């Protein structure tokens, strides 16, 4: 708990007794103020729009990704494709019927 501040009634009384009077406002100040107010006040719900904006943005990014990034094949299909390619690539090496390029006589 902080220490209470000692009062200074003499000083406070002197200050209050000898305050200068506050000058009165211009007669048309209120009217001028009201005339310069912007016509509409921004709605308070502006802050509540952010989740909606973020959701729309996320959906847009996802859609863009679907378009730009090629779809990935399932893993098993990819492996099967690789195996087929390997078999076809190496089958001629071990085949009894040699490919033309193996019997081409050397110069």
């Amino acid at each position, binding site marked *: 708990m*902080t*220490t209470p*501040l000692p009062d*200074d009634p*003499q*000083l*406070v009384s*002197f*200050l*209050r*007794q*000898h*305050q*200068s009077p*506050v*000058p009165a*406002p*211009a007669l048309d*100040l*209120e009217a*001028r*103020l*009201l005339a*310069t*107010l*912007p*016509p*509409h*006040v*921004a*709605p*308070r719900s*502006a802050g509540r729009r952010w989740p909606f904006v973020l959701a729309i943005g996320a959906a847009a990014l996802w859609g863009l990704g679907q378009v730009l990034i090629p779809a990935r094949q399932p893993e098993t299909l990819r492996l099967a494709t690789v195996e087929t390619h390997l078999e076809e690539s190496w089958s001629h090496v071990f085949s009894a019927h040699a490919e033309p390029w193996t019997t081409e006589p050397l110069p």
Partner: protein
Amino acid sequence: MAEASPTFPDDTALIQRCLGGDTQSFQVLYRRYQSRVRGTLYRLCGPTHLDDLVQDVFLRVWRGLPRLRQPQLFGVWLYRIALNVAADHRHQAGLQRDQQRTLAAQGHHHTDPLDLNHCHYQDLVERGIRQLPFEQRAVLILHDLEDRPQKEIAEILKIPVGTVKSRLFRARAALRQFFADEGVHL
């Protein structure tokens, strides 16, 4: 704060209407608080451009209402805006010139010795408060002249209550010293 009633709606009800663009409700708020705001600005900044400063405060209030999350703290928020406006204004060069003009004007109209004494003390109080650093001046005015509780001042200025107390203590000590230097011993 005024009690709620159809004839005298409270601040929260008025603020809700203002958010719908109701300038008449804003006029009620303005009339409710303008003299307090005016007094604070006058004590902080003097008479220079006082009308403009008051107008600036209430324009900021109107524009800032959508961001006010706790309408029940409207008074605290309003004071904070007033102090920000005063802080922005405090380096105006005309402050010193107006002090001299005020003293000269007062001297021309009062010949009664009692009046002269009063004018002298008025000038002393004005100069004494103005020579305080802004932070101390704000706390002294809010507490000793406008009767705001220390806790509310802490909320307005966004400082700890302990800081309010230390600034108030230093402000009072500086004022007493200033008055003593001018030959006035309280």
